[in-house]
């Protein structure tokens, strides 16, 4: 499909502005102005609408396709939450209005949403305080790692390392490094953290341990109580990566279990849309002793019931966001929590886990399931074995696209060969799950009889497999081929 730039016709106007007859040069010296007009497309409004409508048809999304992308919790995004976030009372609010001394009472609705949201998240996870500022999961990790650093600094501890298990998301070590820590990786045993490996790595200079629970294999960390004790014994802090929170709502609170810092992904667990890669929201919760280190501002409720922004926290790590985080995303998650309530949240977790186990069980004779026991909200399969005739996880993923399903996550976690990581979520009906199983059975059978047809997929989409090596070598990153 042509790009917009290729469709452009000089002097064609889109949304006609006709705002002024003045020129920029009337207000600024020529030397401060750009020498040539910016080369953006010149198209009519309908041309633009049609271009993007056509582009949208070249995309899979939850609205149109089963999207069992492991670790990403691609559940249904309720439409009414979009209406909530688009209310003019929220979208038109300038963030600085809340910082004007006399204008706090003009933003009470927004401040109440944030205050209430923090308290709901505290109760859901059993933490003492929250910040809503981090703008994505990885940003939450960075915030959490910085809080850990600030805590140890304040105590005068000389701690320089953070431990990550080998099953961790790649962002965990990257976030820890960005916060100034040295990263120590430890190996798993039987798919979960090996307490002995952890003990060996837990030296006095360890500031914290980042854990995903259930982990990326979809397994609950059975040694958790022991792990918590060991970590706290050396005055290290335990970090909870909330990527997999959808597996435990109402069943366990990470604060009760002894975690000190947690980030949540509102775009996963709390059903805000992923938007093709963002915007997300990654609130961070902490235990009591870490509350003073949370980013500023914090929302405070006064005795007379008014809400204010409170900047008076001298131990705070400072600003993680220019303002209060991705407020528009919070609104959607807040509406979702109000809608589901305590029974609905618990029910979401139960059906997420049931659906994953149902798929795991139905697929155990189809694909190798390396850790074939009760899993949480996701499980991993492995595309190995002679029956597959050399058909790999990648081939199966592409063949699923031809069946109209988005593929599961593949080749992650790294510790499973030819890994296929499936997370169905609670919002998919049994018919959809059964259809997915039938399609996988057909693909695996075809691998036995006609492996080349599987390796040739996808054949029903606008493009077939793309040459990624060429993309990296040629580096055509714009329509102008700006790079060599």
């Amino acid at each position, binding site marked *: 499909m042509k790009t917009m730039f290729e469709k452009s016709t000089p002097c064609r106007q889109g949304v006609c502005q006709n705002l*002024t007859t003045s020129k920029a040069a009337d207000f600024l010296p020529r030397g401060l102005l750009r020498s040539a007009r910016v080369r953006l497309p010149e198209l009519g409004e309908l041309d633009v609408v049609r271009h*993007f409508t056509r582009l949208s048809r070249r995309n899979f999304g939850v609205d149109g396709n089963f999207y069992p992308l492991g670790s990403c919790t691609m559940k249904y995004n309720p439409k009414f939450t979009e209406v909530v976030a688009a209310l003019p009372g929220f*979208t038109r609010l300038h963030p600085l209005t809340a910082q004007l001394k006399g204008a706090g009472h003009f933003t009470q*609705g927004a401040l109440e949403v944030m205050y209430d949201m923090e308290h709901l998240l505290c109760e859901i996870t059993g933490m003492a305080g929250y910040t809503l500022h981090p703008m994505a999961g990885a940003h939450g990790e960075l915030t959490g790692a910085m809080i850990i650093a600030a805590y140890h600094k304040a105590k005068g501890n000389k701690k320089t390392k953070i431990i990550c298990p080998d099953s961790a998301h790649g962002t965990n070590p990257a976030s820890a490094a960005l916060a100034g820590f040295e990263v120590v990786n430890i190996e798993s045993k039987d798919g979960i953290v090996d307490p002995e490996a952890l003990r060996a790595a837990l030296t006095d200079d360890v500031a914290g341990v980042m854990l995903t629970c259930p982990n990326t294999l979809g397994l609950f960390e059975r040694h958790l109580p022991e792990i918590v004790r060991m970590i706290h014994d050396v005055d290290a802090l335990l970090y909870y990566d909330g990527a997999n929170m959808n597996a435990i709502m109402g069943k366990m609170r990470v604060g009760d*279990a002894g975690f000190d810092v947690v980030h949540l992904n509102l775009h996963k667990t709390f059903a805000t849309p992923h938007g093709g890669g963002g915007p997300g929201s990654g609130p961070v919760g902490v235990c009591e002793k870490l509350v003073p280190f949370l980013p500023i501002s914090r929302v405070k409720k006064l005795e007379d019931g008014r809400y204010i922004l409170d900047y008076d926290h001298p131990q705070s790590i400072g600003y993680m966001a*220019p303002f209060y985080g991705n407020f528009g995303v919070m609104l959607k998650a807040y509406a979702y929590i109000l809608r589901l309530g305590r029974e609905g949240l618990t029910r979401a977790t139960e059906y997420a886990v049931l659906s994953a186990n149902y798929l795991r069980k139905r697929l155990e004779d189809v694909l190798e399931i390396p850790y074939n026991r009760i899993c*949480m909200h996701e499980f991993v399969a492995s595309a190995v074995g002679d029956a597959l005739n050399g058909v790999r996880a990648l081939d199966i993923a592409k063949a699923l696209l031809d069946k109209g399903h988005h593929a599961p996550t593949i080749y992650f976690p790294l510790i499973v060969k030819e890994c296929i990581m499936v997370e169905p979520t609670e919002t998919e009906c049994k018919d959809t799950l059964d259809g997915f199983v039938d399609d996988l059975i057909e693909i695996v059978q075809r691998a036995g009889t006609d492996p080349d047809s599987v390796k040739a997929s996808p054949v029903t989409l606008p493009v077939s497999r793309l040459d990624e090596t060429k993309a990296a070598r040629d580096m055509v990153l714009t329509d*102008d081929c700006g790079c060599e």
Partner: protein
Amino acid sequence: MPYVPHTEEETRQMLETVGVTSMEELFADIPRHLRPKSFDIPHGLSEMEVMARMERLAARNKVDLVSFLGAGFYDHHIPAAVDALVSRGEFYTAYTPYQPEASQGTLQAIFEFQTAICRLMDMDCTNASVYDGGSAIFEAMMMGVRASKKRNKLVISEALSPIYRIMLSSYTFNLNLELVTVPHKQGQTDIRALMDAVDTDTAAVVVQNPNFFGQVNDFSELCQHARAVKATSVISVYPLMQSVLKTPGEMGADVAVADAQSLGQPLSFGGPYLGIMACTKQMVRQLPGRIVGRTVDGQDRTGYVLTLQAREQHIRRQKATSNICSNQALCALRTLIHMSLLGPGGLEQTATRCMELAHYAAKRLTDIPGVELLTDGPFCNEFALKLPVSAYEVVDALTERGYVPGFPLGRYYEGLENCLLVACTEKHTREDIGIMAEMLGGLLK
């Protein structure tokens, strides 16, 4: 139960297939003593009830103020087609395009976004966006640190947004980096002092155009100096104004960054927005975040993929260029559609109208006895005023009457307690400005 479609019969069948008798059995791995001590969340509400509650909350925010607040975040008109298009479920319920064949819509849109941003900035390469303007500056500084290998000194202008300066000092507190802030001069970026501060120990220098006080500069000389001492020059810009202002590319900057809120994002009480980063081709491997490249499939058809992934954390883990594993894709799509709808002419018109109104406002306001411009340098749509009284008091008094006259600079700058930062956009009218000027005049009498 909302959004859980399973019938009782299906639930029973599924449990049976799994080989358990109850839902609870699925959670047997979680020990009893780790079960929630409380889970005191209110009962669920109907969609109608939640909507009513949210509408009540929204109504408690006063959004019919005539506001001259800017400070980097501006209330521009967004064509209705932007919302209509990004509301398509195929865009907003998709995730990161890990399966390119099923994500050509998102990928081509990002490629077009990259093209549009590079052309706007006159730079070679860009990524698919980062969280916001502040994190973009931080990431750009870190590009400079990596490119310089061992240098740890960062020079920033005090006329760079104080909001971003606080973010930078927060982000770097546990890193072995030295932030040197060069004071502003009556609201002017002190280019001479910056050039003196940038030396062979400097990894990066960061300035803003127009600066926080609205002042427009040409940073060519500074960029040239930075290049001579092998420091990375970073310019933070106001993307809408970039349609008329001399570009970072023309000035010879190594990295251009911005918050693209002004291109298609509603103010939304602080987010979501998006940070954009564009750089020279020499810097591309230092660039964090998602990048889309053009390629072909087996039948030689053009297609798009995520590329240069060797920089990223799922491969490099702690050695990655950054921890950023997503982008503000939907916001980037908004920005792209917004730019496409307006086109070069629409953007220029909008930028020029903002300037026209701001210059009118500056004239009207400085006609008031005792009110003068903080500095007489060139500005676009925002300027700083010196008042004879505290700016806080003025803001409080006028806001009560429905007009927010601007942002009190004393909030972030000691010694500027009497100064007010006033921004205009195309949404203001001359009448709005006239009324505000009369109110201020009346107050100061």
